[in-house]
């Protein structure tokens, strides 16, 4: 494929936003139509990308140049390969501040150091088997959000513009292959999200938005330092000074193990942290806040409770996945040793998130908050799978990222519909709604079952693989984590039953509280065709993936394998990956029949 599909994918939402800005007099209907068209085009492009990628998933290259420790970097050093790469120079500094004064070189040791290594970064984009799924998911969720967006929404045009800019930011984060570019999109995407949060939502939205931004940016700033740190630390150890992700990944093969020194505390001896470990922690902090993992989740319940439904569809569906994506793309590949060193820590946090999220979800009286805490619990599973650091766990994590995107978006649409129809989010104010809105109740049942990990629903596949992977590492934690599945059944059914079963109950029921009277007053409250259209693809995919998970497991397994091999380079002794390359799994082999 010769034309720059990723750049086009990135620019389509931006162009849509500019188009909307250029049409000041557009009617709400027209704005919504443009928004849907743009997001649909983006979804189409991302599907093309996915299909073309899956046709030949193994043809990616690492496209490496440069030498590490005198040895030319080649593809063999890079376990992770990327396709559809585009690279344009962004900033190239030949040499720094050329000459300050001849006196600098005169016998003054402080200034006799060699000039700083040139700072280069480029516009480098590409996808691998991890990001194509998420890009497709992003395309779908933004389209769903556009469908859900009511044309009566106030300041509709601003909302649409900001939504499209968010989409561009998300796609940028998923496609960038240069650390500076990645950080650029990572932070820039926050700007439209912030404006969406302060502009639309309940009366506490200002606080929620500020909390979200402060949490995220604080973490991200540490990541910024770590990005600069990776540049200098990798450069000092291997001679490769670059922000280019494929090159950095390959260069890690040359980083020698340095856990020789230890220190002792309370009678145990611990390995002293080397620079890579600190960098790992800085990256992990940023991603742990974004996911979020307990105890960095403080922003999430407020943000999720305050937001408007269309915003929450993509915010909860795809933006929160970026943290998990970051863990896989950057922590595993750039810091293989540290990934193994901190595996217990991250798995512990993941299990804590699973249990805390589930228990907190049970304790909520607010339906939106219940779903918010459920999200924490589900994302804990994703991180647990990632840091199982084996193919099953990672494979499950990748699948579960997609699944969670579908489920949480659908859950928030449903919960948002209840809130909009009845003006309350309190669980005890509502009940028996299956009588008033049977279609809604049916769809909500499917979504809730998917959320609790019912077999034959999509979530089951992911959680099963994750627990399988975790069990191989630590049976105890896998058992504890599976408590989360049981609790999920509890809080999901509590939500479902509370809302739809039992006697019909709505706020302000009036004197005559017989069901017939309430139904008569309510009139038609069931799902509108638009809402069914929005929910249909999500529910359809949940069932499809649940019933026939074969293809997605096969394809993501290839990616999972790549990342596991990247993380397994922790010995630092064998840059040629002799052990790992023995078990490359190609989708065509794994699936038994050729996809070509």
């Amino acid at each position, binding site marked *: 494929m010769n034309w720059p599909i990723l750049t086009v994918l990135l620019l389509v939402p931006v162009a849509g936003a500019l188009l909307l800005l250029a049409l000041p007099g557009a009617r709400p209907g027209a704005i919504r139509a443009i928004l849907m068209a743009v997001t649909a085009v983006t979804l189409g492009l991302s599907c093309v990308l996915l299909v073309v990628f899956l046709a030949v998933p193994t043809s990616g290259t690492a496209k490496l140049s440069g030498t590490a420790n005198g040895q030319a970097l080649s593809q063999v050093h890079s376990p992770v390969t990327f396709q559809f790469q585009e690279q344009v120079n962004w900033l190239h500094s030949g040499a*720094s501040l*050329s000459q300050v004064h001849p006196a*600098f070189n005169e*016998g003054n040791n402080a200034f006799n150091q060699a000039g700083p290594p040139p700072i280069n970064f480029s516009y480098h984009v590409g996808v691998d088997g991890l990001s194509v799924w998420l890009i497709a998911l992003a395309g779908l969720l933004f389209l769903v959000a556009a469908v859900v967006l009511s044309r009566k929404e106030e300041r509709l045009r601003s909302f649409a513009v900001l939504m499209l800019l968010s989409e561009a930011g998300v796609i940028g984060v998923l496609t960038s292959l240069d650390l500076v570019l990645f950080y650029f999109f990572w932070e820039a995407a926050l700007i439209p999200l912030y404006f969406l949060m*302060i502009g639309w939502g309940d009366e506490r939205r200002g606080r929620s938005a500020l909390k979200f931004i402060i949490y995220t940016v604080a973490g991200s700033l540490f990541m*910024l330092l770590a990005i600069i740190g990776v540049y200098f630390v990798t450069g000092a150890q291997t001679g490769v000074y670059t922000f280019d992700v494929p090159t950095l990944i390959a260069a890690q093969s040359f980083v020698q193990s340095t856990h020789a020194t230890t220190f002792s505390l309370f009678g145990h001896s611990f390995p002293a942290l080397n620079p890579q470990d600190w960098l790992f922690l800085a990256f992990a902090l940023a991603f742990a806040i974004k996911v979020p993992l307990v105890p960095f989740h403080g922003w999430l319940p407020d943000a999720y409770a305050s937001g408007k439904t269309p915003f929450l569809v993509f915010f909860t569906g795809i933006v929160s996945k970026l943290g998990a994506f970051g863990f896989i793309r950057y922590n595993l590949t750039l810091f293989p040793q540290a990934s193994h060193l901190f595996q217990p820590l991250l798995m512990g946090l993941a299990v804590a998130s699973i249990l805390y999220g589930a228990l907190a979800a049970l304790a909520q009286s607010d339906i939106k908050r219940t779903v918010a805490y459920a999200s924490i619990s589900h994302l804990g599973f994703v991180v647990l799978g990632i840091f199982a650091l084996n193919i099953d766990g990672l494979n499950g994590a990748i699948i579960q990222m997609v699944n969670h995107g579908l489920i949480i978006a659908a859950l928030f649409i449903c919960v948002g519909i209840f809130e909009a129809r009845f003006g309350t989010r309190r669980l005890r104010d509502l009940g028996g709604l299956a009588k008033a809105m049977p279609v809604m109740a049916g769809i909500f049942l499917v979504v809730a079952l998917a959320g609790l990990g019912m077999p034959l629903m999509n979530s089951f596949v992911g959680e099963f693989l994750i627990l399988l992977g975790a069990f191989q590492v630590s049976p105890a934690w896998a058992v504890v984590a599976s408590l989360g599945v049981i609790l999920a059944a509890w809080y999901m059914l509590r939500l479902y039953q509370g809302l739809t079963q039992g006697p019909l109950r709505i706020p302000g029921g009036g004197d005559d509280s017989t069901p017939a009277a309430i139904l008569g007053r309510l009139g038609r409250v069931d799902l509108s065709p638009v809402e069914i259209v929005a929910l249909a693809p999500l529910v359809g995919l949940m069932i499809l993936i649940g019933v026939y998970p074969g293809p997605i497991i096969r394809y993501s397994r290839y990616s999972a394998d790549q990342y596991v091999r990247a993380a397994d380079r922790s010995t630092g002794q064998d840059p040629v990956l002799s052990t790992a390359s023995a078990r490359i799994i190609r989708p065509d082999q794994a699936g038994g029949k050729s996809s070509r």
Partner: protein
Amino acid sequence: MTTLLSLPPWFPLHFVPASNLVGILPVLIVGGGSVLVLLADLAVPRRGNLVLPVISGVVVLGALGTAVGQWILNATNPVVFNGAFADDRFALFADFVVLLTALAVICLSPGYLRRRGMEEGEYYILLLASLTGMLVLSGATNLIVIFLGVELLSIPLYVLAGFARDEPLSQEAAMKYLLLGGFASGFLLYGMALIYGETGHTGLAAIHQQLLQGALSHSFDPMLLAGIALLSVGLLFKVSAAPFQWWTPDVYQGSPAIVTTFMSVATKVAAFAVFLRLFSATLAPYRSEWEVPIAVVAIISMVFGNLVAVAQTSVKRVLAYSGIAQAGYILIGVAVGSPDGTQAALYYLAAYAFMNTGAFAVLTILSQRGEDCDRYSQLAGLWRRQPLLAGLMALFMLSLAGFPMTVGFFGKFFLFSAAIHDGQLPLAIWGILTSAVSLFYYLRVILVMFTAVPDADSDTAPTLAGLSLEGTAVASSTAASVGIPAGVVVVLAGVGTVVLGIFPALIYTLLQGITVVHG
């Protein structure tokens, strides 16, 4: 002696090498322009016409063109007047930033002065006089010339700070600035005297040679160190770094907004130019002595400025404390001391000029008769009234906070990268911690503009003529038009903030070939 022209024997140029005068041409143009404006002010006594701002603008443009010409010619020996002044690219870069800021301020001035009822010709005279001092300062390579520049810069600003003559706050600002500024000048001069007493020179190059010998023999020299310390205090006062910042909030708040715009950006750039020249070149041999104190000042500035800004209720004070914090960030580049630190500091200064001029320009535009735009409530609901202005203000706030897509991000990126490369990790860590804190107050401005409901009385604020996002300029009957130049300035500052935020190479490549000389 260069004889470019054959001159009559009585012509003064004959006695001064022409290259000297060419070297200080921007200074001459702006200084002469100041006198020209003074005469023009006498010739056109009628208030409110545009003669003076137009002359001032042309003068600044002329100086800018000259500086660009000097940059292109890139003199091989940029030192003139026997090593007292340098028109090297370092100085020229600072000149660009200062002159562009001055140009922006001159474009904003007529409308602002008319709305505030302060249309006096002296305003432009003093502005150009202060600008002359800044241009002197950026190229000064002699202690005497540095002092000359500092005083020439400061004295007109003392007057300008009190330019709103019937406002007590403005008077207070002028008095505070004068007293504390005089105090700082005393420190500066005492430091210079001690350095001169110890080295026997006022030229920076000669001082550098002395220091090299001293550093090589590893002898401890208390008098010289005291001199450097006092000199630093004087300059740190001018850049408003903590703990020498006490004047900043009061002066920034009390001064007319347009003066604050000029003061907060141009003064800081000029003072940092001489600071960088002194520390990265002249005092480099003593780096081990000043590295830690400067780093400590940088950290104090970042922490103090950002923490105190959170508690402010006045927008101008918020920006004043933010300015203190920004001085701290730039000091990272000084403390690092390496060439990439200097480069990063210069980059940040250019970035700062765009975003801070823009932010203050918005306040300038919103200021009404008798009162500057200063309270949060005056910004409330700005988004409903003037979407473009609110959007631009939000952009400048995000840039000051260091978000990507704005020039502030790469400013911080280069500074932190220089600090990390130089092994000054604590500076970088303090930098990011305080950056996170700064979000509280920068985002509060945005929140107020975009969500709060406007006051009943603030609907009379002027609108940005013809530049409304909704396509319909909401011109209520009382709203005065801001005028095209002011609107253009704010929009250009916004465009610059975004374009430089996406293409950092535009400035970075300029900085590649920079040389710093000191005579």
